[in-house]
């Protein structure tokens, strides 16, 4: 009843190929965008904006990048946070050394630098695949962090090893309140998500999926293996690089190379696994889940100690959080290996028939 595509006829190719062919989807996306751009900045308080929504959006972007590489092109990568680090530090340097460039072009250039690093570390994918490749991408993780720490230029020879992101100024307007930073983040994320949605249904995206599903068959039907794989690494790293730049400029403010650990890479990998591998929506759902889980756990433990009067120690809490986090991931993998996006699909199937079961 609510979600029925019957009766929506397409009479032109343009209509048939539009990005959201079903009317209900178009309405849903429009409502979502209206909420994200109008309602949230008006009503959300500072805590929600700067502690939950901004990191959620940034991680969604990084997860989107990893999903393009792992979910669509089938190349498992454990170096996501290294690409984010490249983006973050290069954005800092572009703004520092070429202030006339402006923030947004600096972010784009930083993303391109991350893409270049991604291409270099994507080269092994031409020879190896699967877990061998995953371990090989760890090389990127460790090498990039080492280079950022050892080569002083990247951090502008900061004696403390910490960089402070510059103020975001676009056309003379300083974006320094949480709401304005949120606006920048949500705009960039929305634009890039739209681009990704279009990418995966383009020729390039279909080539990615062909490589993922069977690389031998893909090369037999004439998909250039080298170009496709390296392009997947480049686009994915570009997304991660922009996410890294946003991570520093809109969320953390100050950062050191150690912030981009292997742990962060794993977190982003979890996001796409829990959200759904090979799904744009899944990247957002997974990012929401992983961002909200620690907050939910700390709220729950606060309520617990309030209710029982016991004050659990910090070490106990952090260990419990590790156990619950890991346990939930295993649980999710067992119960729904295709992720939250699959649950949404099932819900749509149900809605299509509702309220009549046949």
């Amino acid at each position, binding site marked *: 009843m609510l979600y029925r595509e019957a009766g929506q006829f397409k009479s032109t190719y343009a209509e048939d190929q539009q990005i959201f062919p079903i009317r209900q989807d178009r309405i849903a996306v429009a409502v979502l965008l209206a909420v994200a751009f109008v309602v949230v900045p008006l009503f959300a308080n500072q805590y929600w904006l700067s502690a939950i929504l901004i990191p959620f959006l940034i991680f969604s972007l990084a997860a989107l990048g990893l999903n393009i590489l*792992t979910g669509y092109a089938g190349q*498992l990568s454990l170096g996501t946070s290294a690409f984010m680090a490249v983006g973050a530090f290069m954005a800092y340097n572009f703004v520092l050394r070429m202030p006339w460039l402006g923030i947004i072009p600096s972010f784009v250039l930083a993303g391109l630098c991350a893409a270049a690093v991604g291409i270099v570390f994507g080269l*092994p994918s031409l*020879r*190896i695949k*699967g*877990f*061998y490749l*995953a*371990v*090989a991408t*760890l*090389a990127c993780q*460790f*090498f990039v*962090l*080492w280079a950022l*720490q*050892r080569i002083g230029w990247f951090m502008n020879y900061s004696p403390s090893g910490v960089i402070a992101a510059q103020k975001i100024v676009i056309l003379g307007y300083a974006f320094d309140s949480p709401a304005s930073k949120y606006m920048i983040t949500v705009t960039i994320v929305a634009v890039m998500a739209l681009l990704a949605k279009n990418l995966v249904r383009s020729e390039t995206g279909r080539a990615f999926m062909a490589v993922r599903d069977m*690389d*031998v068959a893909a*090369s037999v039907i004439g998909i250039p*293996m080298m170009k496709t794989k390296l392009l997947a690494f480049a686009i994915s790293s570009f997304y991660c690089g922009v996410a890294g730049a946003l991570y520093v400029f809109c969320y953390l403010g100050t950062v050191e190379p150690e912030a981009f650990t*292997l742990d962060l890479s*794993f977190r982003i*990998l*979890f996001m796409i*696994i829990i959200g759904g*591998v090979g799904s744009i929506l899944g990247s957002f759902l997974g990012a929401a889940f992983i961002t909200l889980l620690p907050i939910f756990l700390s709220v729950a433990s606060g309520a617990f100690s309030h209710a029982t009067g016991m004050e659990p120690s910090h*070490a*106990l809490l952090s*260990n*419990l*959080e*590790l*156990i619950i*986090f*890991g*346990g*939930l*991931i*295993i649980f999710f*993998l*067992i119960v729904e*290996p295709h992720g939250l996006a699959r649950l949404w699909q099932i819900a749509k199937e149900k809605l299509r028939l509702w309220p009549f079961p046949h």
Partner: protein
Amino acid sequence: MNVAFFFEVLIGGLLAGVMYSLVAIGFVLIYKASGVFNFAQGAMVFFAALTFVSLVERGVNFWIALVITLAVMVVLGMAIEKVVLRPLVNQPPITLFMATIGLTFVLEGLSQLVWGSQPHALELGIPDVPMEWLVQSTGIVISQTDLFAAGIAGVLVASLALFFQYTRIGRALRAVADDHQAALAVGIPLKNIWAIVWAVAGFVALVAGLMWGARNGVQFALTFIALKALPVLILGGFESIPGAIIGGLIIGASEKLAEVYFGPMVGGGIESWFAYVIALLFLLVRPQGLFGEKIIDRV
């Protein structure tokens, strides 16, 4: 260049490589038998070492503590097989891999929850001092602990080889490693075999944990040795125990030599990634690793 110094670095590197191999063997065992890339091996090493050292500190006799820890590891291995892996049978390998990362978090949290997170020192009764006679005759300084660890690793590998070669269970394990379906067809109970493999991997984790603990102390950093073992794995091949040993030796030696002779040129601290770069360069020549099964479907 000082020849004695060169040999000292080389031998030190080889001995460190043996330690990497100890961890890598745990990965190989599980990968061979079940095709699971067990990222939790490092956490298992940490868990085993922490359990053992905490028992000893509470006044339990050394050997009894060893037996208890071994029992705990065997039970843990079986529990992992039952709770985590069995429901995930027939899922793609990446899902299983992710599950073991989740398992890593659980084990890290669990071991610190039970035993606390302060670092411990582990005494195995072998003083960490250079061997006198070697220093006097050649001037090369080699730690007794390292040599002892190498000896233990040798015994471990030999006993594993005997176990795999001559026992009924060992033969079943090799059959499963070769071909799951054929093994099932001739009546080998796959589930039991996986439980056994995880238990054996738990045992290997215990040995590795004791050796690493004696060397660096039992602390949280022990979980990171899994990351040291990964380049050994891609160098030696995921399916090969000899590969893990030889890979470990190559990585250990070249890492130490590079750190001493090449490190100062670029500012030092290169051991975090150098092993990976060696392994990567090597893979460009031989994508299946030193002893890995030949994959023909290269594109």
